[in-house]
C-alpha cells in the first residue's frame, strides 16, 4: 500500500504531463514533421 502511495506521489500532475507530451514525448518525430512541413511549404511557395 505504501509502495502504491509512493508511486502515485511520484507521478507528475496533469499540466506537467501535458507539457511532457508536447515537448518531450516523440520529440524526434515532431521535429521531423515541422522540418518536413517547412521544406514542403518552401517548395510550394517558391515553385507554384
Amino acid at each position, binding site marked *: 500500500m505504501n509502495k502504491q502511495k509512493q508511486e502515485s506521489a511520484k507521478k507528475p500532475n496533469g499540466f506537467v504531463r501535458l507539457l511532457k507530451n508536447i515537448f518531450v514525448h516523440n520529440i524526434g518525430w515532431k521535429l521531423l514533421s515541422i522540418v518536413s512541413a517547412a521544406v514542403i511549404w518552401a*517548395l510550394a511557395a517558391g515553385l507554384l
Partner: protein
Amino acid sequence: MWFLTNIYEKMAAKPWACAIDIVLAALLIYGMIVFLKRNNAGKLIAFVLVFVAAGIVLSSEFMDLPVIGSIMRYGIIIVVVVIVFVFPAETKRGLLKLASPRDTHEQYTTAYGASDEELHAAINDIVRAAQNMSKKNVGALIIISTQNLPEHIIDSGTKLDAVLSCALLESIFNTKAPLHDGAVFVRGNRIVAAGCFLPLSQSNAIDKELGTRHRAGIGVSENYNVLTIIVSEETGVISIAQHGELTRYFDSQMLTDKLEQTYGLQATPESTRKHHRRKGD
C-alpha cells in the same frame, strides 16, 4: 534567385497565414507518422514525404510537365485511397477512435523500460512457464515483440500491461481461464495483452498435423517482426516461429538462448551455432 524571391514575397504579404499553413502541415504530417508507426509501417514515412515533395516540384509551373503535373496534383487523393485499401481495419479503427477519444493517449513505445536483470528474470519466467505447460500438455501461444504490433491485434484481446511472471503466464493459459484461447503479447518484461486473435498463415508448406495455434503463430511472424513461442496442446512440443519459419523441439536452454538473442542480451553468432549443432544432434 526567383525561388527565394517568391518565398520572401509570400512571407512578407501574409506572414500569419504562412505560419498557420506550416503549423497545420506539420500537424498533418505528424498525424500521418503516428498512424504509420502504430501500424508497423514506419518504412513508408520517407516514401510519403518524398512523394509529396516530388508532387509539388513536378506539378509546379517551373517544371511545366502537363501529364505528370496533373497526376501529381491528384497524388494526395491517390495516397488516401491507397491507405484506405492497404489498411482498411486500421482506418476504420482510427475513425472510430476519433469519434471516441477516451484512450487516444494510450500507446506502446519500443523502449522496454526494464533493466537487463529484469529482462533476464522475464526470460527465465517465460522458459519455466513454457516447460511447465509442455509437461502438462497445455497449449500456449506467446508473442515476443521488440516493436509495436498493430493496435487491432492488441485490441482483439484483453489489455493487461502486467509485469510478466511464470505463474501469470500459466494462469492465462489454464484451459479453464477465459483468456487461454488466444495469444499473449509480451514486450520486455511486461505482458501487454492476452487472448489476442492473430492472422492465420495461408502457407501450404505447413505440416497438416499442426493445428490452428501453430498456423496463427507462423502467420503473425510472417506479417510482423516478432518471435512466437508455441506449446503444442497435443504433444507438448515447444516450437518457435520467426519470419514465417517454424523450428520445433526447443528445450529450455535453446529457448533461453533464443530469447536472450531476441532481447539483445546475447551475441547472435555463438548462440546460432549452438542452435544448429543441437538441431543436428
